[in-house]
């Protein structure tokens, strides 16, 4: 019974030969996969101390609700719905930081950089729009004139932090690369078991 599970050397070589091209293809595709991250500190609305009635303050231009609206707007654009890569945008309101993570291939880094810059331009525009809606008209009256309470400080796209990291661990790539060999071996063992059983029932019928 135990011999059924053991593949002969000839069988192992044949399975290896058949599974090698597929295994190599999986290895080469998966080792190319990366995460490409871009981080951007958002713009601010800075409250200045006019007329000695207001303490200086620094406010991010989007909150969680505002970011949700931005995300929905961007999700419908061609920047986000692209076949060649996946992209996700998140926002850490505590530190006013946007994070873009592209999931794709190493060879497309330049594309991610261009798309990322475009997305951050749109964020910049959205923030400025938000400033104009919420903050720009707030004025204090003193010294016989009106003074805008808040000043707009835009985020700096030139200061984008970018880096890449491997998407799959070495173990994951290794396991997936040998999966065709494992699958074919299991199929061969199953075939031998079924064949063995059929031969046995033929023998018993004789």
């Amino acid at each position, binding site marked *: 019974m135990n011999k*059924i599970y053991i593949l002969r050397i000839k069988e192992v070589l044949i399975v290896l030969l058949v599974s090698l091209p597929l295994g190599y293809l*999986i290895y080469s595709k*998966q080792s190319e996969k990366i995460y490409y991250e871009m981080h951007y500190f958002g713009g601010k609305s800075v409250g200045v101390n006019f007329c000695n009635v207001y303490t200086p303050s620094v406010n991010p231009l989007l909150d969680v609700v505002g970011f*949700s609206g931005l*995300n929905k707007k961007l*999700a419908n654009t061609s920047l*986000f719905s692209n076949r060649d890569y*996946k992209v*996700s*945008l998140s926002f850490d309101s505590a530190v006013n930081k946007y994070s873009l993570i592209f*999931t794709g291939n190493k060879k497309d880094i330049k594309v991610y950089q261009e798309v990322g810059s475009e997305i951050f331009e749109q964020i910049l525009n959205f923030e400025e729009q938000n400033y104009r809606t919420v903050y720009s008209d707030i004025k204090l009256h003193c010294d016989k004139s009106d003074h805008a309470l808040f000043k707009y400080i835009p985020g700096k796209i030139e200061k984008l932090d970018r880096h890449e990291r491997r*998407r799959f*661990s070495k173990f*994951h790539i290794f*396991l*997936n690369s040998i*999966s065709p060999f*494992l*699958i074919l071996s*299991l*199929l061969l*063992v*199953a075939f031998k*078991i*079924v064949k063995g*059983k059929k031969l*046995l*029932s033929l023998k018993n019928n004789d």
Partner: protein
Amino acid sequence: MKINNEVKFKYAAILSVLFSIYLATFFYFNSYLPAPFVVNKYDTFMDFYNVFHWSLRDGIYTEWSSVYPPLNFLFANLFQYIFDLQDFSGGSGLLREGIGQQIIYLILIYIVCIIISINISSKEIFNRNEKIYYLVITLLSAPFLFAIERGNLIVLSLPFLCLYIKSNNSIRSSVYYSILVNLKPYFAIIYILNLINRNKNCDQILFLKLAPIFSLLIYIFSGLIINQEYYLTPANLIGFGTQSVLNVVDILALPSSIISFTYIFDVIPSIGRINLLNYIIYAILYSLILLSLVRIFKFGENSDNLSILAVLIITNFSIVTGGYGMLYFIPLVPMLFKEKLNNIITIIIFFLFLGIWDIIIIYYYDIGNTGVYLSGAIVKINQGITLGSIIRPASNFIILFLFYNKLKMNKYE
């Protein structure tokens, strides 16, 4: 006076229809679904949307620590492809808001699964009327309605369970078993029972050889396709089993095991904890399961009885399977029908499936106002431990006890 099974099915079907009318009326006047549905009324369909959300992104087994084998996510991907569903980044809640109306496709698939399951399992056993009544009972049963409200993928495993039970070819039964165990890993109990079974014929030995090979094949193949860290499933399963990740109030919503009684002390502090009672519950239940296993090992059983025992162990052993695990009794009823175990059939139909026991609330929770997904309202929820929360686990245990006694009476050479 003995009542024949067709008449029993008819009365149970009528009661099921009355229960569904009660649910619809309650929802109309109160804007939420009452017990046996879970207390968190905003969590409707989220079992499905969580799986669907994660099937579209990285981190299934690393970030989410999923316990579902990769075949479940393949189904979610297939669902997306067939119904052309759009992804929404930002969480599974946002996904539900974006494609919520398309849940109707999943509900239709679930209904088809039940119809297929009943057709397979009751073929040449039920007459036409019995089939129709049984269909009404199961479609309007508490476990099925609960499974729909959760959006749980458990319903998909039912046709494969029926195919496995009905199959008399060991190659086909190995394939069906492999799909089952790749949908819900606790079906490994079927293999264990076959392994320890004393009376193994050639077909069962062939099943024991082929089943692990096909299971591994499907596991590796589906893992390769979804291309995520599927090999972490065993570690995640152990973590899920050892940590208390389930909400106590949800455990008591539709329990199937008497283990759930040990959680009652957590929600009714005025009773005072009686640890001895917990130990007694565990001791009685696990002793009965152990005796059944010893019986199989010493005397052996046929494959039908092994399947019935597997379902009884899965639904009794712990609270982890959830109340919708009682759906696995659907293919058992025709088998019990054939064996003329009418008392067990009566308990299943009238006490496990029927939802009317949940109309009676024994102890109310203090929940307050909460949002309800289905109606969009914010309402005060009046819910608690129901009579059903007591009757179902007790009935399931009684079924296990009665079945064990039936095994004791079997004589095999």
